[in-house]
């Protein structure tokens, strides 16, 4: 056995770890070619990794493709649409126009002369903001709590798990209604957050249990062995593996926000001073008598289609989003050299959360 030589380093108080030992016998520069990494390379890499390839994967799946197209339509409606299309106001057109009668109000008008299409379009931006903020809030809190609880274990885990237990045990919709009455939120970001105020809890629990398994994965252990800091392990080795699940649940949370917000607007629990499909529904239902007379049915149908469309888009997205960050799928689609180890695609279990 060789005598130790690094103890002397320790004695002099020098850091012993970065010893030059290996370089003496094996030079890292043997490859000869020097490698230059420029900023544009990095940008290029970023584009490839986070935009081009996920897009490619998403586009490859029929469901995701349709979902993306639908969501794109809503984006169009929400941004340029709401910008250019005249905002709905009473008596902007003739009262009680049927659908497809005039170009001024392609989908007809209400009994007080509001353009139905305008109402649908102008409800979109707020809805999109709500959906995104709700989705981000729910998933990010879930990820934060789930990963920390799962990874840290012990008392932290117990505390966080009890916390989410309690959060989960509070009936969601009634809670949200109470909060809506208290805060009378108008800001769509706030509404989105409020609606998902305890939606994250269930998600956090499943993320926690996934992290519990991930934490035992050899590559996480390897990272721990290398002395990588916990946040970095979570960020680099744990969370990326949760991404498929998180993305799917982002879409699910977003759909929940659509359903809940429209429902609460419909019931009049959320302040109806903004444009919302739920308010349109309520108006058609109780003011225009869409139920009994049947003349105003189109006023009911337009917002219904808007609601179902966005929900459909989100579900379809969710169906395929889990593949976006699956390296197997993306390499296959990017036409890179194929797997040599095992062949099967690991499909993440798309859990259903309503």
């Amino acid at each position, binding site marked *: 056995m060789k005598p130790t030589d690094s103890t002397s380093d320790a004695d002099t108080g020098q850091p012993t770890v970065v010893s030059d030992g290996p370089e003496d016998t094996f030079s890292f520069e043997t490859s000869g070619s020097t490698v230059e990494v420029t900023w544009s390379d990095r940008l290029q890499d970023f584009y490839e990794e986070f935009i081009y390839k996920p897009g490619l994967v998403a586009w490859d799946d029929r469901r995701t493709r349709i979902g993306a197209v639908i969501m794109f339509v809503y984006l169009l409606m929400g941004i340029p649409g709401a910008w250019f299309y005249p905002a709905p*106001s*009473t*008596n902007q057109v003739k*009262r*009680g126009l049927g659908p497809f009668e005039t170009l001024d109000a392609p989908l007809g008008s209400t*009994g*007080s*002369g*509001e353009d139905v299409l305008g109402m649908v379009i102008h409800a979109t931006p707020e809805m999109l903001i709500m959906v995104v903020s709700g989705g981000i809030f729910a998933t990010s809190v879930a990820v934060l709590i789930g990963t920390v609880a799962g990874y840290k274990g012990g008392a932290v885990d117990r505390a966080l798990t009890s916390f989410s237990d309690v959060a989960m045990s509070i009936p969601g919709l009634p809670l949200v209604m109470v909060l809506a*009455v208290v805060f009378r939120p108008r800001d769509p970001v706030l509404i989105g957050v409020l609606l998902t105020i305890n939606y994250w809890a269930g998600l956090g629990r499943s993320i926690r249990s996934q992290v519990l398994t991930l934490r035992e994965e050899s590559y996480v252990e390897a990272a721990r062995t290398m002395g990588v800091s916990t946040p970095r392990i979570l960020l680099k080795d744990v969370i990326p593996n949760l991404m498929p699940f998180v993305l799917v649940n982002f879409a699910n949370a977003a759909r929940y926000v659509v359903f809940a917000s429209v429902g609460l607007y419909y019931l*009049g629990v959320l*302040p*109806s*001073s903004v444009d919302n499909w739920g308010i349109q529904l*309520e*108006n058609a*239902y*109780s*003011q*225009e*008598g869409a*139920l*009994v*007379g*049947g*003349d*105003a049915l189109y006023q009911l149908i337009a917002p219904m289609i808007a609601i179902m469309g966005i929900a459909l888009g989100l579900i379809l997205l969710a169906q395929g989003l889990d593949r976006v960050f699956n390296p197997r799928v993306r390499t296959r689609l990017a036409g890179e050299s194929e797997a040599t180890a095992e062949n099967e695609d690991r499909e993440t279990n798309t859990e259903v959360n309503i």
Partner: protein
Amino acid sequence: ANLVSNGNDDNESPRHVSHVNQVPADIQWNSSNPANTPQITNRVLFDPFVKYNFSTGKFIPYAISEWNFGGDTFELTVRDGLTWSNGDDVTASDIATQLRIGLYTGEPYADFTESIKTPDDSTVKLQFDSTVNEQIVTFQILADRFVHQKESEFGTYLETLQNDEQKGLKQLGDFAYQEPIASGPFEHDSVGQEQLRLTLRDDHPDAEKINFDEYVFEYRESNQQAQQALQNGAIDSVFSLFVQTDILKNFPKKVTQIQTPSNWGYGLYPNHSDPHLGDRAVRQAIQYVINRAQVRDNVSPDSKTAPEYPVGIASDNQTEWLGDAVDDFDTYGVDSAKTKQATTVLEEAGYQKQNGTWVDSDGKTVELPIMVPSDWSDWNTATDTVVDQLTQFGFQATKETRSYDAMLGNVFPNGNFVIVAAGWLYGAPQGSFPYFSLYHQLVKNNDSVTYNYPAADSSRGGNRADVTVPARSGSGTMTVNPAERLSELAGSTDESTVNEITIEQAWVTNQDLPMLPVLEKVEQTFITGGEEWDIPKPDAEVAQVQWANTWLPRQGEMQYTGN
């Protein structure tokens, strides 16, 4: 209509099925208990003192067969032969008990009534502490009052009240009267979650005018459900239902709509302590800008009217009371947005338009968040229209919704609003007599709103101050004290004084706009006629009451004719 789709058909006896919008099982008939008091069923179960007829403007004697006004006394005579459903006679002391309880529970006549006596078995005599206007007394004591608190049931509460008012109020307030002893032609039979069944009493004086055995109230929660039930004949009548023009078209022919004035309607209460809405110029500008006819047409031209003059008098009575003076009054534009006038008024008051938005002299934007009960759809539509009209003119108007309960509980009492949608008239039938609505607008509204109108009662945040408005003659100004003038009216028995004060206060209202009238509601009562029921024409005088479907049977005007 009398046969229930999946009910038990052994029930051969003819019946009238009407609509109730409360869960029947939850209803209790003690009107001194604020929880779940009935809105309609009591009108069949109990006899009204008298009935106000809208087309004649007169009271029709009923349970009170005669009444005598004596300046500071008021004498009531109980109808002969009137009995309770347990067989007891309805006596003067039953009526007195009920009126005496009212002294404690804050009935309006409590303010001027000194004592209530029963000189004999059929006479009740109220003694006032001063003279009171006859109309006011009559409305306050007779209108909308029912024979419903039998002494044997309520006497003990009265006793407690007399000994310990607090305790009495609590006990009375907690008493849920579940199996009422009826004074009306129908008595309580059974009640459930879905329906209340009343059966005909043979010993009621008007029993022989009624040829059906049961009066049933079926619960329909929403307007839509009630509409549908009417449409498909599941119910025979609805006492009051907002039905939009389009839907009305689709109703079967046999369904008759009886319209009566509600003397009530959609208006806006400005908060007078708001820097902008406290400014008459802004209120006038708003009133100018609002196109009331357009609002009416957006909501439903059949069930709403646009009042001609923004004064505290119901449309139907405006010409009658204002007489020739009407020409001096400003309409503020019934069917147009008088933007020019609005602009002039505002600019004179130092406001100006910046980037299309009106700002005050300090550069602060005039913000008009109009609060409205969230589940009153017609008012929401009206507000939407108003908001758009105001926005087009350059006000920063928005709609804000609250549940009506929240408004009652929090918004109104605390004055937590800038401008709020609320009823600008007193309501039927009292609203027919201008005093009530003027008082409502200028001094003390019955929604307990704190709105700081200077002339208002202190309990509303005002200090019964004088109000200065341009003189009606066209030059100079006039300063009056609405609170004093109206109490003068209340104590006056002289018709010309009443007229003079009414016009004067209407003028103040018209000029200062303590509230902004927009619409007036037309009550829609529906009764099915056709082959089954023999009912009068919709515009028949006898039907011009609140509500025809509870009154016509007593008059023998609603007869069952066939299957």
